[in-house]
């Protein structure tokens, strides 16, 4: 009995060790500390563009002047759009200066939210939903197809700088699972779009990638031609008749 238990325990431990490579899934695109790289240096000057400075003013005006730090997330988002989809340290410092807080308070926010990328991403950042409903509907295959087609690893940018693939938690499109999101940073913060592509198949995502590469804008939403938005495939199956009037009241009488 004891020997059996020991053997079982050993198996469990081995199992635990075998899982390491998979267990190190990271949701964020970077480490939780900064390492200098040629395009990401603390002292690199970084500023909002003149057009965005107006937007900054607009965002700041939403908050009382002694609660400026509330604008940290919108400003970081704006900075990320302007900087091609990712936030260098110098951009975070610039935001800290605008909202008058210590830089570390901005770093805390930027590291907390996985939608702030702290390493370079492609012009089209493809985010595959990996949460349960999508996973059950085959998000792993979707990701494999993308990575295989682009020849990159997760969070790696293709050589032409066009694409990168990341993972995202639930985006609320579970009814159309599996889905990917395309964050389009190719046109700066003016032309920035963030589109959902739902009901994708391994074949369809590759088509979307190729369309994006050609500069087209594939139709967002469900990719299943037989569905309308989140409706059932092939048209409605319920609520087909006219809704019945409430039993207690005669609506025509009023």
């Amino acid at each position: 009995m004891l020997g059996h238990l020991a053997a079982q325990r050993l198996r469990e431990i081995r199992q635990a060790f075998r899982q390491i490579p998979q267990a190190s899934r990271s949701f964020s695109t970077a480490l939780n500390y900064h390492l200098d790289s040629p395009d990401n240096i603390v002292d690199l000057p970084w500023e909002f563009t003149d057009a965005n400075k107006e937007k900054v003013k607009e965002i700041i005006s939403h908050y009382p002047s002694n609660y400026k730090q509330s604008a940290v997330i919108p400003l970081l988002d704006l900075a990320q759009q302007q900087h091609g989809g990712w936030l260098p340290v110098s951009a975070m410092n610039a935001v800290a200066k605008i909202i008058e807080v210590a830089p570390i308070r901005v770093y805390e926010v930027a590291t907390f939210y996985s939608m702030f990328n702290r390493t370079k991403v492609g012009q089209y950042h493809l985010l595959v939903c990996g949460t349960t409903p999508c996973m059950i509907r085959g998000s792993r295959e979707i990701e494999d197809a993308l990575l295989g087609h682009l020849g990159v690893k997760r969070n790696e940018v293709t050589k032409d700088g066009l694409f990168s693939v990341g993972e995202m938690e639930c985006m609320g499109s579970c009814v159309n699972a599996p889905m990917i999101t395309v964050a389009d940073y190719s046109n700066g913060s003016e032309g920035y779009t963030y589109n959902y592509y739902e009901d994708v198949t391994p074949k369809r995502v590759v088509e979307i990638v190729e369309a994006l590469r050609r500069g087209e804008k594939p139709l967002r939403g469900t990719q299943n031609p037989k569905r309308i938005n989140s409706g059932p495939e092939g048209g409605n199956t319920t609520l087909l008749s006219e809704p019945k009037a409430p039993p207690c009241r005669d609506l025509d009488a009023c």
Partner: protein
Amino acid sequence: MASSLQRLASHYRKAYRSAITPFSRAFSTEDALVEAKPGEVGLVSGIPEEHLRRKVLIYSPARTASQQGSGKVGKWKINFMSTQKWENPLMGWTSTGDPYAHVGDSAICFDSEEAAIAFAERHGWEYTVKKRQTPLLKVKSYADNFKWKGPPKEN
């Protein structure tokens, strides 16, 4: 944390005390036939002349700043303020010329200031009592983290 352990310990101590009371009564000061005058205890214990008049410091050790537990807080100790200490050249061990050097901190411990003073008086030591520093509990609130900062300053 430590207080629960402490309570447990004090419980045992009480039990232990009650067990030894019948024997120790004969020596306690209240019931003794001959009252021990201040300083006499040292004299009858055969303590060398030069150590009969010691200067001691009675103090209550503070809580270690890095530990939260309060089990050791509130005790009273006697410090003999011995500074004769040197490194023994043979082995590098610490030597001392004062037989009392380690007595106070490692051996004698009192529950109250009065007990420590009484002990020092009985031994005829010249003592100074260091005031015990205690923390001050002030009202604190989790909600303070989110307190309204007031209206914006007008420029």
